[in-house]
């Protein structure tokens, strides 16, 4: 069957693209959660200059297009003498972009914990760091998980942006194959690959949510 033959010939190339997408995704994601949590805590209880810097950070990174951020780091930084490996630079941009969102998600989640919890800690003599680390932040995780899941899924799709800086990810590979062969099969394969990836991440977060709400 011609179609099946065609798919088997282009699949290995697509898989190489998938490898790049996955590397980019996990390289970006791995630091997002710790950074988001640390930034949120610092934003709430850090020293004033730190809070100010973090405010500027979330403001700027959430307020500009990811594609523009990518261009600035990849093509702009070399102009001022900063040369980063392309892959690392792109992963850094994705990581800082998503971290800005997760910081705000965590900050809001921490803010939504009932004030009675703080009072309970206070009357038990707990210090502010103890209150935050042992009582407030663990509860805020469960509030923050669903929106963080959304961000994690968005990040998978955002990695497709690396195709414009000539990294051979799934999307870029699909485009090249489609142009070369005048067939759209590679697009359909890319479509399915992304659906599988995002479905997998949804499952991972569903599991985490179940863990985080075990006490409900």
């Amino acid at each position: 069957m011609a179609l099946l033959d065609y798919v088997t010939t282009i699949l290995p190339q697509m898989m190489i693209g998938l490898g790049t997408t996955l590397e980019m995704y996990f390289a970006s994601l791995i630091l997002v959660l710790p950074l988001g949590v640390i930034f949120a805590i610092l934003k709430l209880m850090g020293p004033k200059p730190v809070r100010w810097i973090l405010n500027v950070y979330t403001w700027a990174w959430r307020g500009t297009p990811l594609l523009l951020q990518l261009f600035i780091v990849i093509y702009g930084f070399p102009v001022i003498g900063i040369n980063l490996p392309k892959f690392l630079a792109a992963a850094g941009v994705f990581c800082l972009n998503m971290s800005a969102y997760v910081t705000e998600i965590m900050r809001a989640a921490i803010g939504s914990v009932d004030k009675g919890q703080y009072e309970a800690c206070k009357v038990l003599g707990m210090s502010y760091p103890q209150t935050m680390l042992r009582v407030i932040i663990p509860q805020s995780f469960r509030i923050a998980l669903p929106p963080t899941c959304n961000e994690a899924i968005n990040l998978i799709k955002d990695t497709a942006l690396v195709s414009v800086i000539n990294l051979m990810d799934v999307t870029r590979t699909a485009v090249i194959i489609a142009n070369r062969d005048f067939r759209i099969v590679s697009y359909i394969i890319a479509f399915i690959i992304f659906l599988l990836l995002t479905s997998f991440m949804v499952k991972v977060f569903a599991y985490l949510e179940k863990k985080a709400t075990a006490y409900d």
Partner: protein
Amino acid sequence: MELTKTKNDREVMIRMINIHKSFGDVHVLEGVNLNVYRGEVIAVIGPSGSGKSTLLRCINKLELINEGAIEIEGTIIESVNMPDYPVASNQQVKASLGKTGMVFQNFNLFPHMTALQNVIEAPIHVKKIKKEEAIALGKRQLDRVGLSDKYDAYPSKLSGGQKQRVAIARALAMSPDVILFDEPTSALDPELIGEVLDVIKKLAEERMTMIVVTHEMSFAKEISDRVIFMDNRNIVADSPPDEFFNNQEHPRIKAFLEKMLSNKN
């Protein structure tokens, strides 16, 4: 002020002197004076908005006063515009506050911790008691409130009455000298009120010093040594329950009691 009337021979545990408290423009307490003696159970009653909860929350500095002084076991923990009452050192204030426990209307249990973890959290992390000792202590306190079978239950799996008993055990685990109860049964279904009141009653029998803000008149009547009636930002009556409930002359209080009793039916 007739603060220390017949009770000069007993140890004053909490002394509130000329307490003023306002939230913005709204005055909630206006020159309240109150002495609480060791081993005493005080029921604080009165209409909503009369300042009962605020009075209670001032004692452990959940609310900061605008004027007045508060003394716990001889240590002045807060003093505003009262030069004769200098505040003790931070360390002493902290130690004295540590001698107060509190039970809230909405329990405020830590939902991500089991009943036992709730009870041992502060002993381990505040008092720095060893974990094994804290667990033994926590179990003892949960036994004391009749929850021997709920050590590992999360608050979400407990009834309101059980939650409030865990909250009482949590307060007891810090071995307080006084426990402040802020409407401990107001959030409970009627059929669950009894089990919480029974625990408080048991503590009263053990001569635990307690201040209970409550709407349960029969409970106030039964267990308190003194009933304090608050109205219009101050204490308007302070008398033993017999006198308070049976020989009430004050028209405002009479009207309040009649209303409370008719609500019951």
